[in-house]
């Protein structure tokens, strides 16, 4: 059996990303349609455990490039390593998760192989031996179907939460092969890492609780006397509002999101922004509190399975996409909902 569907295991300093195994599952599906096998590709330093995990999640074999120069992710050396593995293995199809690193890594690798790269897949089919990818364009206002027309590998990046995560099979075995790649001298130097606020990743989250501009509009709160600036008073109020969002998120093991209005007003970092100019998410449940539902926000979350809207304004556009709606004061509804769900879910 020709093994020619390759799947790249993206990791952050040795920790596989949330969607890594979903993409192995997707590769398995493509391989079955193509009558092929699945080869996992792991690049880094001391990352052989990821190769075993990839096999347990459905890969037939794994190839590892393990080198001290690959300790930190850098696109130049990682792409050189990936290109070598794909060329040696005669890869016809390559799947990667869609992350900040892989978008760049796949782009650079496509240049080395003079082939096509298609990010942000939300589905695919196999037709005449080719993968046909479906992806949103214009922030999801339209969809397109794309094939890679070259003879080179067809490179696709797949979004999180599109495919189910396969169960790990402990006993599953496969060959793990080391590949040597001539990496050349590194020109850039990784100085270090700064962790962003810990919490559940927005793109991987099954549940998201989001806040909008409305979280600052609580007249019952009096900011401390030492805050005199009006904007700082508003930010202080908003932070009390986001504390309520976080409490509900904690009970639901949810990620915390925000609208652009809330980010632009300085209530919460940009990393939390959901929407056209933030993260595009598709959780099972999306709770929007004090979010009006501007078209740019909807573009980032309207494919969520169930949307729950809590807003004072019955006319807010968010209610048009919601499955459940409450017209009310989020400062009263959120804490009540947190208490209720905590009791009902015994968390």
């Amino acid at each position: 059996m020709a093994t020619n569907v390759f799947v790249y295991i993206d990791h952050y300093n040795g920790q596989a990303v949330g969607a890594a195994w979903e993409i192995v599952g997707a590769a398995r599906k493509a391989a079955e349609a193509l009558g092929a096998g699945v080869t996992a590709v792991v690049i880094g330093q001391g990352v052989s455990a990821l190769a075993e995990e990839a096999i347990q999640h459905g890969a037939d074999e794994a190839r590892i490039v393990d080198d001290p120069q690959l300790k930190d992710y850098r696109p130049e050396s990682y792409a050189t390593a990936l290109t070598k593995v794909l060329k040696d293995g005669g890869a016809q199809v390559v799947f990667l998760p869609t992350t900040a690193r892989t978008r760049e890594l796949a782009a650079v690798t496509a240049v080395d192989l003079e082939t096509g790269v298609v990010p942000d897949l939300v589905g695919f089919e196999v037709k005449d031996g080719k993968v046909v990818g479906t992806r949103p364009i214009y922030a999801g206002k339209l969809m397109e179907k794309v094939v890679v027309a070259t003879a080179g590998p067809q490179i696709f990046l797949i979004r999180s939460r599109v495919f189910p995560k396969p169960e790990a099979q402990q006993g599953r075995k496969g060959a793990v092969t080391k590949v040597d790649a001539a990496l050349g001298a590194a020109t850039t130097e990784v100085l270090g890492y700064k962790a962003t606020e810990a919490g559940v990743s927005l793109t991987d989250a099954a549940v998201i609780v989001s806040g909008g501009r409305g979280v600052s509009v609580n007249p019952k709160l009096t900011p401390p006397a030492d805050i005199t600036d009006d904007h700082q008073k508003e930010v202080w109020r908003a932070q009390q509002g986001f504390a309520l969002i976080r409490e509900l998120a904690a009970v639901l093991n949810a990620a915390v999101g925000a609208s652009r209005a809330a980010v632009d007003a300085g209530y919460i970092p940009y990393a939390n922004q959901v929407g056209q100019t933030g993260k595009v998410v598709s959780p099972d449940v999306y709770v929007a509190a004090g979010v009006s539902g501007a078209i740019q926000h909807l573009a980032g979350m309207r494919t969520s399975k169930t949307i729950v809207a809590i807003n004072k304004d019955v006319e807010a556009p968010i209610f048009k996409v919601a499955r459940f709606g409450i017209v009310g004061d989020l400062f009263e509804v959120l804490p009540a909902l947190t208490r209720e769900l905590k009791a009902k879910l015994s968390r």
Partner: protein
Amino acid sequence: MNIVVCVKQTPDTAATVTVENGKVSWGDAPLVINPWDEFAVEQALRTKEAHGGKVIALSVGPEAAREALKHALAMGCDEAILVSDPGLLTVDSLVISKALAAAIDKIGGIDLAFFGRQAVDSDTGVTPAQVARRLGWPALTLVAALSAVDPAGKTISVDRAFDEGRQQVKSPLPALISVTKEICEPRYPSFMGIRKASKATIPVWSAADIGLGAIPAPALSWTEVFAPPKIETKVEMITGDSAEAMAAKLAARLLEEKVL
């Protein structure tokens, strides 16, 4: 510091985009500079203001893409160049990256190239890294902050935004940077800037002018474009006498429907 900032012209993000006869249409909606690229222009200008040099705005596109370049000029860029060729109108990032790299090569002596993180039409975000690879420069994509710029020592240090945190990287120059919106707040074009931009001459380079020779075929083939299936939702409004009553009802419904 000699800086290039690459911009693309796109439909406005508020446009209603539809499919007509298998083709994308945005009706009468205005074409604008890609909103992400405004952050790139701003950061290019701030870098020049801090370290001297000049900023050249560069675009590949139809004749009409001049307007995006004029916006960049109005914001304060010193020069603008349009690469326009019938053969470059319906291609993919693999070909566009070749054209941009060739144009940057032709300009010559560039220390830094800035890009927005992605274009709001095709939404792929792969072109910046591809241009970097073709130039043989370090690709510093999704940069949220420039922490140190040393034109004399020919180095730059940046914070890159990953989903898990920031990666801090020191790179030699020349280098290529794509920016996220955290990096700065774009300025509005000034009245003087708009006047200056309206009078500016923008040279147009063909594929032959940048030494591209025969334009390669795109690696991608778009087989279909369609409107996403309408998601039919009927909102169930939860009512009650108090917040507690509504919250209890909502929690019960969420569990009943096995949503949670």
